[in-house]
């Protein structure tokens, strides 16, 4: 077995494509690199191609074209080695409910060739860190949804993977459990020193956890940068208002006054205006000066949804 390359990026994808039978192009030329120790997010709505990308990187889906490497191991040419340096927590819960939590962890440890004494130590450590030590010897069918997710995290980490894939880790969980799990995942990075590739359609998850975010739309990456840099493109404040009348007239009026020229976005009758040097009052005056009335006026900080909207013409929630 070739030795893993210590100098290689933890994850490297080059022009990955996946076309399913029937012609569905789920992933169309995705490429990115993830450095060791980084938390990298794939953000996009359901059907954008996130899970398919994870599937190709974890060798559970075969790429139609392109290449990918995990710690230097090609996922197609060296699949066993690539799987050996990674672990994945899939979107759907995949623990064996008929077994205990401990049996699920032992199974993973054996399959990843972790020595028994090491595995037992890891189980104790991870059980304490993830708050499931007390329930490990219970059948998994008795676990709550949040406890099953924690068990899956423990299972994925027992082999000390170089790369941890988390596919929509908090989907389907109630808000309180989600927040707790985000805390757990955020702590993983410091504790385990593992590279994390995370897919999500939750903006707070991407913003909170990720060093960099790739925004995926219709199988392609439309933007890739740190959350702060992506948001900085929209300025510090957004003005949102409804316009009664022709929105194109409102957009022209804003442009004529040098306010957010070319950056304002209209969805139906709702305008979103990035305020940079201008004030909200200036923008409203410009629109009303064009003979249009306005309503539902609010201002807020930009979110990744606004970034997504600007890039794709759809909101993350709408696209989902």
């Amino acid at each position, binding site marked *: 077995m070739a030795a893993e390359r*210590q100098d290689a990026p933890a994850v490297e994808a080059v022009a990955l494509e996946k076309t*399913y039978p029937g012609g569905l192009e789920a992933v169309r030329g995705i490429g990115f690199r993830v*450095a*060791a*120790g980084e938390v990298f997010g794939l953000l996009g709505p359901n059907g954008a191609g996130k899970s398919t990308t994870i*599937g190709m990187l*974890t*060798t*559970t*889906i*075969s790429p139609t074209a392109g290449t990918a490497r995990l710690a230097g191991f090609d996922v197609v040419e060296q699949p*066993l*080695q690539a*799987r*050996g340096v*990674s*672990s*994945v927590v*899939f979107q*759907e*819960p*995949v*623990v*064996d409910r*008929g*077994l205990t939590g401990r*049996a699920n962890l032992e*199974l*993973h440890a*054996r*399959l*990843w*060739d*972790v*020595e028994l004494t*090491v595995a037992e130590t890891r189980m104790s450590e991870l059980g304490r860190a993830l708050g499931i030590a007390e329930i490990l010897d219970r059948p998994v069918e008795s676990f709550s949804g949040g406890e099953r997710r924690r068990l899956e995290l423990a299972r994925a980490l027992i082999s*000390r993977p*170089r790369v941890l894939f988390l596919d929509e880790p908090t989907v389907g969980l109630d808000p309180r459990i989600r927040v707790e799990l985000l805390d757990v995942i955020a702590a993983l990075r410091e504790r385990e*020193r593992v590279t994390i590739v995370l897919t999500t359609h939750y903006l707070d998850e991407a913003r909170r956890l990720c060093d960099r975010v790739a925004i995926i739309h219709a199988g392609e990456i439309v933007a890739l940068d740190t959350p702060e840099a992506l948001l900085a493109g929209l300025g510090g404040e957004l003005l949102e208002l409804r316009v009664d009348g022709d929105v194109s007239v409102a957009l022209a009026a804003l442009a004529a006054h040098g306010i957010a020229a070319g950056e304002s976005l209209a969805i139906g009758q709702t305008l979103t205006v990035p305020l940079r040097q201008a004030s909200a009052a200036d923008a409203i005056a410009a629109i009303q000066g064009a003979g249009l009335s306005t309503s539902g006026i609010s201002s807020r900080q930009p979110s990744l949804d606004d970034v997504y909207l600007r890039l794709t013409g759809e909101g993350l929630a709408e696209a989902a």
Partner: protein
Amino acid sequence: MATITAQRTALARPARAARLPFTGRAVRTLAARRAALTAHNPRQVAVPLIGPALLALVVAPALKVATGGLHSHIDYTSFVGVGAVGLVVPLSCVFAGLSVIVDRHSGAQRELLAAPVPRSYLVLGNLLVAIGLSALQVTVLVGLSAIRGGQFHITATGAAWFVAAALLFTVFMYGVAETLASKVKKQEDYIGAVPAVAILPFFLAGALFPIAAMPAALTAIAKALPLTHALALLRYGFVDPRGSGLHDIWGMSNVTVEAWLSFAVLALFAVALTAISVRAFTRSAVR
């Protein structure tokens, strides 16, 4: 980044101690998982045994009384008792194949596909459990037949033929079940295929009567079925040292040669279906 790299080095795994080669350990682990899940579902052990047990306990002795048996040197109770193996093994293997579909639908299969083991090990691990389960069920069946007065002639050589035939037939049938589970996506469609796969051959392969008792065309079909060879070998091992069943297939004067020929046929089918099932699983599991 240098700090992270340094810490990564510090967390590197310790050197591996000497233990079983990883190959054996991985297959045993997968088999242990399947065995544990099967134990959690006792119906999978008991249900395939019900019909064959009734055959051995009730039908065969009753038919013997009603018809006078086979009118030969072979005891009819033990003849059908062994014939019932031709039903319990296919049913048991079909149940095991259903677990593959359950794994796929539950998502557990995906977790196993992400493990650093060859995909063929997933099939082999399940096969080991199917063999163990079939061994248990066949033992119970033969025991029930003996309790009902079946006459068995067991020698060391005969036992070897019996075990070899049962083992190869189980491997073949599991290959059929695994292949079917890979090709058929829905549980209901899989169950719908059971009569053709597990029950129809039982009636054509000499389970209840010698194949020579059928019309020539059906006898010719029977000779092509792996179950026919399996039953002939099983009976040669435990019931009929003269090998009448083998003679019905091959028509030779040397029963040992006939036995080896049927063994070769079974082995060929077992190897072929195992290879086919591994390929079918690998191709269907990874989209």
